[in-house]
């Protein structure tokens, strides 16, 4: 990415983040969106605070190299929340694509320069990649939810069998549930 666009984004970073955050919380009901924007306490409003913190970092990181691992660290908490809320997969990840619109609107005048248009195109490819990464995380979260449910059921049934004396050697057969972040 050329320095032109990077500098422009950095100059208007606060405004871009604010607009991006507004667009992201608009995916909730209007009353909820007001709450998510208004309540600043991170423990009273984990969804809003996780989202704003994540978006701030993601924009910073996108201006640097596209480091999947680092980006995933900040994308994960947002997607982890949206993966259990009442969203379809596309709704859960759509907020990333909305950054394109936010940039185009915020930098409307500046982007008329032909050179910047090329840079914007390159930057938008990064946003696309980020969106794909979000889909990966979303699917991991969904799989985790089903895994948790399956483990609960399996343990419940196993314990019932055990109580009924149908398990010969608990030391050998007792399933050990792995606790791993997927």
């Amino acid at each position, binding site marked *: 990415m050329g320095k032109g666009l990077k500098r422009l984004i950095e100059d208007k970073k606060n405004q871009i983040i604010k607009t991006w955050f507004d667009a992201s919380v608009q995916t909730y*009901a209007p009353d909820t969106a007001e709450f998510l924007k208004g309540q600043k306490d991170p423990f009273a409003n984990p969804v809003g605070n996780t989202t704003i913190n994540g978006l701030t970092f993601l924009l910073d990181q996108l201006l640097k190299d596209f480091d999947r691992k680092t980006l995933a660290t900040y994308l994960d908490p947002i997607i982890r929340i949206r993966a259990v809320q009442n969203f379809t997969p596309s709704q859960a990840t759509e907020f990333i694509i909305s950054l394109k619109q936010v940039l185009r609107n915020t930098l409307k005048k500046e982007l008329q320069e032909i050179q910047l248009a090329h840079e914007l195109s390159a930057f938008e490819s990064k946003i696309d990649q980020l969106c794909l990464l979000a889909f990966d995380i979303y699917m991991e979260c969904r799989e985790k939810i089903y895994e*948790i449910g399956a483990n609960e059921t399996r343990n419940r049934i196993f314990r019932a069998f055990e109580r009924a004396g149908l398990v010969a050697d608990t030391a050998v057969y007792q399933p050990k549930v792995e606790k791993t972040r997927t």
Partner: protein
Amino acid sequence: MAEELPKPEELIQIQHHSPKTDWISTPTNIRKGMYCYASNPKSVEYVGLPNAREWNPMEEDWKLPENWQEIIHQGFKERLERFRSFKVFMDICVRCGACADKCHYFIGTGDPKNMPVLRAELLRSVYRNDFTRAGRILGKLNGARPMSLDVLKEWWYYLFQCSECRRCSVFCPYGIDTAEITIMGRELLNLIGLNIDWIATPVANCYRTGNHLGIQPHAFIDMLDFFVDDIEEVTGVRVEPQFNKKGADILFITPSGDVFADPGTYTCMGYMMLFHYLQEKYGFDITWSTYASEGGNFGFFTSHETMKRLNSKMYAEAKRLGVKWILGGECGHMWRVINQYMDTMNGPADFLEEPVSPITGTKFENAKSTKMVHITEFTADLIKHGKLDLDPSRNDHLKVTYHDSCNTSRGMGIFDEPRYVIQNVCNHFYEMPANTIRENTFCCGSGAGLNAGEDMELRLTGGLPRANAVKYVHEKHGVNMLACICAIDRAALPPLMDYWVPEVNVTGVHELVANALNLAGQNDRTIDLRHEDLPGIEGESEEEADE
């Protein structure tokens, strides 16, 4: 999920905003993962509740009695006359919004109908229509609406998205207890057979066999015998629990989850070790009952009458055995029922004595009428009087935080006793932020009978505010153990942690006590009750142990 995937032509129509309809005009969309399965008709029938039949919330026809509207109206009327608090709560809300953002389900799901004020409006809107003149004349202008099938379905969906945790009531300037409104709403739903199976079947089991899982007396003893072997393996000491002993000083009752579900089982072993220690050293005489083998009371989530029936068996058993008083284990709603309802429901328990600790002589005056003492009060008193031989260093590998269970904190004001106990048996204790503990505690997200497998999304979203605070102390202090004094918590928090903060495990307070407790004649104690090696105790140099 598959059926929820949008088609390509829908995908290109990106809508950046949610529809701006008011709540009353926003239709309810019953979503998988957010509700529990309908109750098994056999369970409903067993306890004599109405309209036992198979039904499915996802189907159009809920197989309601023909005159269901009349039943609801009549039931509403009776309860308004019977419970003055209910009538007052229907009338006095000014919709100031103080409660709106305090509910963990609203914070986690973002669904405005989970704002406590709106959940209560579900009932209030019908109340205004049916029972107030202004509502009848002004209709929607006055926030009134007639009962309809859609309204009923909305009731059912959202009244089972409330864990009756009462956090909202802490913030209401009028003192409205929205949990009480949910309780009444669920009672009305039960009149036409709209319960969930995670509640109905435990209620039937508890009524028939004595505990939620329907475990018969011999199997109950088998399980505790299994723990006796486990404790011997860990400590080298064989404990001998007493069962159904007539004339014992004290009856012990705990939720059956402690006996049958990990990690509650380790807490159960903790009680057994503590009782053994006290018996050996001070001649403590306590008995378990295989008949009153359940402290939990899912009748609380069904109706006042069902709650009363299930609660009475504990006192009937205390009477039968002729004990002096009852000691209660680490449970949630058992204590809310005891503390808030028992006395006027089945009490006062005059045939029992005012509880006095036989070891320290402390009078538990708070339990004067119910005759039932919470085990953390009992243990805190023992520690305060120096009656326990404790080695907290056996818990040194744990960095512990404490989750106030809703029922024991907001339902009976137990804040300091569990903390006092933990801080005497562990060297590393860290509090979560102030607005997430004590009376402000966030629910585990699975209380009031919502701890099923099929409503996992509801549980994970509802538990988000709690998990978020745990994550904070995990990242700041390296907390790796979440302690609690509720069996639902011990069942609900492990999956919650697994999703949000997988590095943190869950324990009961008496598991920590037992791991620190020195028993006469014990072995080197190189493993804890989970059979995990204690770091620094065996096969490691002192230097490593210091780390």
